[in-house]
């Protein structure tokens, strides 16, 4: 079970209050977690990654275990603490704008 923490606007859009919990096949990666997230909450499609290219939107970051893993490869395995559910995978809206 993967725990995902979303920024406020995306929690509202997905209609969830707290963390999201997802089942992900195989060893979870950024891509497979986001695929599962969008499959469970279609309203989030296009708000984290571009529809066509799956490229991360510019002001979105991914954190895990206190590290910024945004620039790691999308298919790299996520840390064991995230896989075990001990730590969440965090989708973060970058500090920008007002």
């Amino acid at each position: 079970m993967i725990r995902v923490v979303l920024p406020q606007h995306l929690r509202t859009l997905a209609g969830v209050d707290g963390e999201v919990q997802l089942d992900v096949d195989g060893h979870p990666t950024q891509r497979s977690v986001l695929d599962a997230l969008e499959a469970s909450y279609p309203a989030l499609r296009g708000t984290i990654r571009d529809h066509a290219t799956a490229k991360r939107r510019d002001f979105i970051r991914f954190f895990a275990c206190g590290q910024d893993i945004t620039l790691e490869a999308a298919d790299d395995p996520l840390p064991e603490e995230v896989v075990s559910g001990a730590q969440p995978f965090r989708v973060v809206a970058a500090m920008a704008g007002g």
Partner: protein
Amino acid sequence: MSGVRLLVGTRKGAFLLTSDGKRDDWQVKGPLFAGWEIYHLNGSPADPDRLYASQSTGWHGQVVQRSDDGGKTWEPVGNEFAYDGIPGTHQWYDGTQHPWEFARIWHLEPSLSDPDTVFAGVEDAALFRSTDGGQTWHELSGLRDHPTGEQWQPGAGGLCLHTILIHPEDPQRMVVAISAAGTFRTDDGGETWRPINKGLRSHELPDEEREVGHCVHRIAMNPSRPDTLFMQKHWHVMRSDDGGESWQKVSGNLPSDFGFPISVHAHEPETVYVVPIESDSEHVPPEGKLRVYRSRTGGNEWEPLTNGLPQEHCYVNVLRDAMAVDSLDPGGVYFGTTGGQVYASSDSGDNWTAVVRDLPSVLSVEAQTLA
């Protein structure tokens, strides 16, 4: 009993303002979609309970919301706006070519007859259509593929398609406007398009009367006279009486003919409203006085409407989609400002009151007349 519902889009959410037909007591609902930019909301003429909203932020991009109950509840629908084919390039601010990139929806225009059909004018300029209530969107690419497309360049606000006028008697015919490309018309339901900018003059262009490149800010039409179009251009208020084939300047005695919105009275097709703004470099009302100007002669002769509007120290702007009229009698006129005020007149503009004063900066106002 009749009533009015104003659909107000702001920099930080949407607001619904409702009143009965007297229009002197308003209920305010909102913010909806708090924190998101709501460039535009609009209702279906065929089903006033069917609403569409353009919701976006720089973080999360574009979302489209739909309501089937007059704004009580909303659901996100499709938000994939893929340009048809290989998009190509348009002109950038510095004159170089730049790839077409979807940024946001500026304007949503529901079909006059089918609540599930809705058009979206987007940045970078293109026209999309949904026929399934917003679930899926398809580009009418004949517009962007026009041979002049690579000459289109963005205005200060972006290369936006902001005006969509559907001919009330012939739905195959539509007029759209793009800043800063100009006005285009289709007579075959959006398959093919041609520029209709004859008579426009823009001193910002090396050839003032060029076929495209004009910064059209807004076009309005009275449905009873669909071949008569009124335009607020970057500078100049213009008029066409032949469906856009030719345009004449009708700025007349306006204190400035720079501005953004323009509206036509619902029952008086020669009564037109504009909000003059000092200049393109000073987006504020002349002399710090917020004045709507009304012409009852289809242009050229304009009178200031000031009762109830601030006449000193006022430096707000009124954006292109932030003025609307209702179809009650006497006619109502409404506009929102960048200072967060929404003003209403229930007597065709003679007197104004602020329905609300402290909303976020207003991006758009639509008026629904409810049975």
